């Protein structure tokens, strides 16, 4: 089998991606154009946009932990007007789909921003970052509550027919319950998942190592947790899943695909190796050729969970 005979195309609802590898929002931007060819990705996903400009959180905004990174950037953002005028038009030059990640403080604001952004013809799909705090609720993230998740997606569903991807928070007791709520609300896909709430302390200064005290853990340290969540979500919903959390190489991405992910986002790995997304794609192709797999979709959810000694003599 030759590399050009492989079918890497995948679908998230009505959205067709030329390949399953795309950046995670927040770990991608125009500046990476100098390093990788965006047209080789499955999609481009610029940093989450907020309605109003936001300054972001106090520094230090990142710290490293064993095989992981905690961040609390706080979505530094130039606001939706800048996004519409500059960010969306910038990505016109690329052939791959543009997925806009939206962060908002209330259900109404999510719907309002989604209507505006989905109105841009260049935008192929919306990723709703439901991990942000619901300021009209009790300040907990929308995605921590099934009812809030359902209501939020339902409201946004009213304003656009474009594919909606709910980016779930892993900071919940039952990811399956939230995934089902997002499906009932009308989501076309699920991103599993955002960063895991974490903390690190400098024992010498006795200060938290993040200016905002708490932050989100990403990187290889979180991958087994995310693989578990993809597997669990895939058990209960029929929605396509975008796996996100700690993918560093092709093996990691394939693990997520076997657990049930249709596509995979890459974040922290790009900081370690700027060409990581394209390297991962090449490693997936190598694997497919090694095992004679013509279509990447045939691997989705194909983890074998029978007894380990089954079939052995």
């Amino acid at each position: 089998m030759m590399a050009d005979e492989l079918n890497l195309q995948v679908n998230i609802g009505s959205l067709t991606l030329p390949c399953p590898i795309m950046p995670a929002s927040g770990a991608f931007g125009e500046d990476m154009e100098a390093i990788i060819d965006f047209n080789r990705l499955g999609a481009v996903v610029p940093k989450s946009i907020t309605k109003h400009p936001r300054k972001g959180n106090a520094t230090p905004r990142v710290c490293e932990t064993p095989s992981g990174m905690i961040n609390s950037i706080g979505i530094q953002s130039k606001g939706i007007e800048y996004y519409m005028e500059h960010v969306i038009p910038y990505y016109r030059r690329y052939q791959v789909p543009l997925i806009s990640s939206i962060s908002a403080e209330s259900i109404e604001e999510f719907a309002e921003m989604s209507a505006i952004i989905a109105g841009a013809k260049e935008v192929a799909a919306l990723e709703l970052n439901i991990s942000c705090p619901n300021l009209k609720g009790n300040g907990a993230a929308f995605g921590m509550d099934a009812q809030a998740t359902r209501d939020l997606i339902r409201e946004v569903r009213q304003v656009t027919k474009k594919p909606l991807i709910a980016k779930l928070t892993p900071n919940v007791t039952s990811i399956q319950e939230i995934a089902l709520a997002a499906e009932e609300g009308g989501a076309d896909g699920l991103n599993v998942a955002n960063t895991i709430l974490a903390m690190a302390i400098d024992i010498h200064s006795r200060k938290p190592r993040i200016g905002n005290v708490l932050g989100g853990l990403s990187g290889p340290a979180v991958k087994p947790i995310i693989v578990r969540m993809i597997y669990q979500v895939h058990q209960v919903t029929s929605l396509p899943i975008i796996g996100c959390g700690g993918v560093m190489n092709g093996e990691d991405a394939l693990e997520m695909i076997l657990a049930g992910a249709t596509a995979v986002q890459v974040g922290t790995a790009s900081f370690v190796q700027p060409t990581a997304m394209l390297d991962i794609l090449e490693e997936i192709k190598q694997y497919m050729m090694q095992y004679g797999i013509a279509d990447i979709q045939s691997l989705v959810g194909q983890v074998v969970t029978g007894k380990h000694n089954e079939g052995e003599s």
Partner: protein
Amino acid sequence: MKSIPMKVTANQQVSERYWHMKVDASELDAEVSPGQFFQLRCGHDLNPLLRRPFSIYRINRRERTLEFLYLVKGAGTKRLTQMKAGEYVDVFGPLGTPFVLQDEWKTILLLARGVGIATLAALAQDAAEKGVQAVAILSARSRNDLLAAETLQGFGAKVLYVTDEEGTSDVSAVRRLLEGLLREDPIQAAFTCGSKRLSKLLQELAATHGIPAQIALEEHMGCAMGVCFACVCDVREGGQLKTVRVCKEGPVFPLEKVVL
């Protein structure tokens, strides 16, 4: 900017806390200027995970090597000390904006604390090549940490030392020293790196004496290519405060703009 495996040609301890690494940069096709930095992978495994930013200590254009002077501070730099000559280190860069050295300047002042001198040494090298006289004040914990002094003197710089050990490095003492220099020497521009309190002092004195000044900032970094917004600082522009990225808009900024 791209990521290139570069051969380590030397990696030696130069004082109790500092190490010096030299790499073969013949694969690098980009121009490198003082003030810019590179992101180095401190090992080949996942822990330490992130790259670490290192400013350029020396640029050897003829022999096509780069040198880094680094303080051993945490897991990343500790791991870096284990790299032996002949091994390869993954180097990503050059990144960030460089210092600006105007042709008309004849004498410049360098004010550095600790490893901040690594950044300013590259500038002193550039200044020497352009026939600009550098006057450097180096601040450190101890005499033992004043490691780049000989390098600077090798570039023809006039070097003054202040140390915690000798009780000469507090802000008021450095203020007296700086004021004396500004009175006596025809200093036309100033540069600083490595200390917030010394930078604040220089910001004030540069404004009083009407001297342009530049600062190289240090910040925890994620991507170092402008996409993650981890390394930010506040700058004043046109009467407004703006939060900008140290890796992209910096690390070198006009000193008067930076909110310290």
